[in-house]
């Protein structure tokens, strides 16, 4: 019973996450300028990844597997935000000049 509930939870969460990824990718491809593309991408992907990792948590061994997954999430958040900061700054500077 418990495993079925967990499996359903995983399926819902991962699907939701995938949906956000899809939305983010559509935004990347369809939005007009760099900043709004960046906006779509970071928001949707961070949320999407968070949901996927949340969904995977019940499927993995505790506590190290979960810890590793959590670490992956944090690292990607940090790297993603730093990267978009750099891209954003570059765009801002080019607009100014």
């Amino acid at each position, binding site marked *: 019973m418990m495993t079925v509930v967990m499996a359903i939870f995983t399926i819902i969460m991962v699907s939701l996450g995938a949906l956000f990824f899809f939305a983010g990718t559509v935004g990347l491809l369809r939005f007009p300028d760099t900043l709004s593309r960046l906006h779509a991408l970071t928001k949707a992907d961070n949320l999407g990844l968070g949901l996927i990792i949340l969904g995977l948590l019940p499927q993995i061994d505790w506590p190290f597997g979960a810890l590793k997954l959590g670490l992956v999430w944090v690292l990607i958040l940090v*790297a993603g935000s*730093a*990267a978009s900061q*750099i891209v954003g*700054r570059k765009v801002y500077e080019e607009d100014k000049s």
Partner: protein
Amino acid sequence: MSIAPILFSTLAALVVVLAAFAVFGRRHFASVIGFVAFGLLLALVWMILSAPDVALTEAAVGGGVTGALLLCACARWREIQGVPQPPIVLRIAAAGLCAAVTVGLIIVVLSLPSPPPTLATTAWDSLDVTGMGNAVTAVLMAFRALDTMLEKVVLLLALIAVWSFGRDCVWGGRPDLMFLPQKNGPLTFLAKILIPVGVLAGIYLFWVGADKPGGAFAGGALIAAMGLLAIFSGLIRPPSIENLRLRWALVLGILVFLGVGFLGFAMVGDFLAYPSALAKPIIVVIEIAMTLSIAFTLFMLVVGPAEKKP
């Protein structure tokens, strides 16, 4: 009906599209980005092919460090105007040749025998002797250790070759990536968080390599990538190529390999043979030295030859 073939076909098609993008793309930079994405997708393919060790190496070396190398090259590259495009006849001839190669290869691949020959059973049966749980590491470090040692020499030789492409007047100086790192920007912030974690992850990768997917290459590449991040964010400068400690670090892996090889001669009577009881600790010692040497060599290969006077 299974959904797997559709998924695999889609993935394979995506890999081909990205490869085509990297080959045919108009701008260098976009092509390199396409290539990095290609490398990451390929790592996924390796997972599907049940080869996690290769997936890690492909992601770290094939996609990651190669991508960094090509991006650095793009940044330094000065476009030369008026490079003639090859004539259309040559293009058609080349396309015909490549199509023939592809078709021939497909025919041969489809003709491969079934059931296929394999050494998996043989390797599995010999795994106990090596004391390792990961068959791929056992092949690399025991059965075909000679290849691994020679391949370390290849890596070192490539670095010496890269150094030899430098100019005489700057010999002994530092490599220079030719762009100014932003100090205290977001990259520095990222570097400060990521580097300790990345180095730890690199050590972890080689440590588990004996029994689980991982190993010296993936670990070394990750540590090298952290070194590159430190350079890009302006935290450190590349060492001078005359730096003695650097030079020892470069050869340490091969030196330990040779030492262990001859130790095998003395103790067991065979080069690179390990006494059963000590096999695992010996392999761990080699892998520590190798990870260190690989990390430094990959790092120095990306930053290139000396550019600034000592």
